[in-house]
């Protein structure tokens, strides 16, 4: 492999990985932007999305890629229900109450998964999504390419929804000022439920495509959650494009440092970038 090929491979690996982190991060940014609260259970929604893909595939034999919409829909409902039953009680409450609620809920989800499905690592067997693509010596596994593409589509979809549709504008309006939005006739309760559902659906879709290449187990959410949070903080809390780009930066920093410097330092650089952002631009790259 030539130097350029290796560099291209390294950056590409980073981007592909970053896409998944980005999609999880978008969910966190959305909730933070609209409701001004941090959802610590986002990683666990990713885990549920992965189990959703796993079980639908196991029980029906449906291709994991086709389970993405199902996982998205299931998680949307779950997110909306979670809002209606639990989260709405802490909207506007002290931050500690919000943190305890979502953090507590994440513990409940992990242990429920542990109880229902056990602690084993599970993977989805290869279906028609398999093999490698070789572009001039740069090798990409299809099982990482497809999730990245799906992530980009989903992220673009969420962005389009936010900017172009009436409901999306209602969401933005509520994010800016809840009372003013209510005054002009926006049903803010519905908007909040929608935001929560949408954020969970992002994690669900990310999870179901991630299950193509990654193993599933009840604690998988925590592994990705940390990176997603860093991506959100990097991009700017509340900014959807920011969260996406933040995810990509984390992915590329991880990959490039790992290859060119040392694998032992790859997270040092990723988190170092985050730290530098917090110090010099606390609102994040795209924050407002």
């Amino acid at each position, binding site marked *: 492999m030539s130097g350029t090929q*290796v560099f291209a491979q390294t950056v590409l690996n980073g981007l592909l*990985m970053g896409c998944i982190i980005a999609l999880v991060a978008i969910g966190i940014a959305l909730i933070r932007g609209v409701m001004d609260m941090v959802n610590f259970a986002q990683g666990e929604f990713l885990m549920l999305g992965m189990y959703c893909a796993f079980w639908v595939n196991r029980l029906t034999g449906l291709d994991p890629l086709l389970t993405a919409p199902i996982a998205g829909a299931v998680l949307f409902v779950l997110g909306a229900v979670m809002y209606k039953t639990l989260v709405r009680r802490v909207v506007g409450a002290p931050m500690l109450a919000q943190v305890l609620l979502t953090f507590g809920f994440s513990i409940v989800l992990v242990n429920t998964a542990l109880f229902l499905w056990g*602690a084993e690592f599970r993977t989805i067997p290869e279906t028609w999504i398999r093999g490698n693509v070789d572009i001039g010596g740069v*090798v990409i596994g299809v099982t990482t390419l497809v999730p990245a593409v799906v992530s980009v589509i989903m992220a673009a979809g969420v962005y389009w929804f936010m900017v172009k549709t009436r409901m999306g504008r209602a969401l933005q309006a509520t994010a800016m000022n809840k009372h003013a939005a209510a005054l002009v006739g926006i049903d803010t309760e519905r908007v909040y439920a929608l935001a929560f559902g949408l954020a969970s659906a992002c994690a669900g879709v990310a999870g179901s495509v991630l299950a193509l290449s990654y193993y599933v*187990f*009840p604690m998988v959410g925590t*592994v990705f959650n940390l990176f997603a949070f860093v991506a959100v903080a990097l991009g700017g809390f509340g900014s959807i494009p920011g969260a996406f780009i933040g995810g990509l930066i984390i992915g590329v920093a991880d990959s490039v440092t790992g290859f060119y410097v*040392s694998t032992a330092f790859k997270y040092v650089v990723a988190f170092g970038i985050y730290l530098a952002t917090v110090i010099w631009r606390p609102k994040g790259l795209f924050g407002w």
Partner: protein
Amino acid sequence: MKRSLVRLAIMLPVLALVFGLLAVPILGKVDTVKVGVIYPLTGSAAATGKDYIAAYQLAADIVNNKMDLDFPFARTEGIPALGGAMIEIVPADSQGSPEVGRAEAERLISSVKPTALMGCHHSAVTKTASQAAERFGTVFLCPDSTSPALTERGYEWFFRSGPTDTTFIEDTFDFIEDLKKARGLKVETVAIVSEDTEFGKNISVVEEQMAATRGYRVVEKITFQNNSTNVNSEVLRLKRANPDVILMAAYTSDTILFVRTFKEQKYTPPAVIGQRAGFISPEIFTTLGKDADYLFTTNVWAPDLGEKRPIVKRINELYRAKTGKDLTGDYARAFTGAFILVDAINRAGSVNPEAIRKALLATDYPGSQLIVPWAGVRFDQKTHQNTLGRGIITQAIGGVYRTVWPFDLASQEAVWPVPAWDKR
């Protein structure tokens, strides 16, 4: 005067009787011997922890019940020297974390008051949990953790029945050497890949030293984060270095990730030799399927050892009936450790910690009564490390590990170099 004498004459037998009754539970019969076992029951290694507990339960079943089995303590009920006292396994959850492991050890010691503690799979957890045991003067028998540092601390109450990483790494290099002699293989360069906790860090140090003394060139040395989200850059580095053999120390999740990434990046290392842990977890086969084929690992046990010794096969069948899975090196080691402890308690004839400690020091357990291929169990008087343990090298073919070294125990020939991904 006379009355008080009479009173005394009545009182004495009564007192004697009362004290006699009290003395029985103090001096004589122990009903149950509690053994605290600390393993990861939640967290990324939870499935492994669960299977460990099953291995301990099986050992307890054999000791507690009368079984038609040609094995120590099988034909009697309970521990003979304690009047048939039952073994009770008390599991505790370390979550794979050194801090939690230590807290759980303290909790067990203060509330359950176990006769001994055992555990903890992760070397880093064993390290802290045994610190607690040392402080409280509780016997800690570690059957599984392999970090050499554990027995180099000179602890009074810590014993280890399993071999250490140093033994396994020596086995690894002996295996490569033997294979080179037998087949004229060319193996000159190695890559050392290790995770970043106690387990991996120690292994990479020993591997690097041994590679140097035996004349191998280390072309890549990688430390990666335990429970990684991806190992893309790690694999890319290996691909570039192109070593003749990769020596890897990883727990289950990362082992799965590495093999999948090798395949994704179309990279077939000529041979990957793992240091147990993730490599010997049964989930390797359930998650990776055929892709797990041709992985080598140092090991403590393999099902094919049963082809030569019926009792090994029989114990594996009992374990299979309990869990639906074969034993692995981890669980066979834990099972063995439990019997070493029971043997010591039986010889001590009491649950007094000091007596058990002395009995453990005097242990001379024959290899013929073990299900693992060791020469026996005898503890070094200073370090308390079993000096008679040894390892085997196994290779995965068709979803099971088969012994390939030492050659006299081997049931198949090693496949090296392994076939490329697209030729399988």
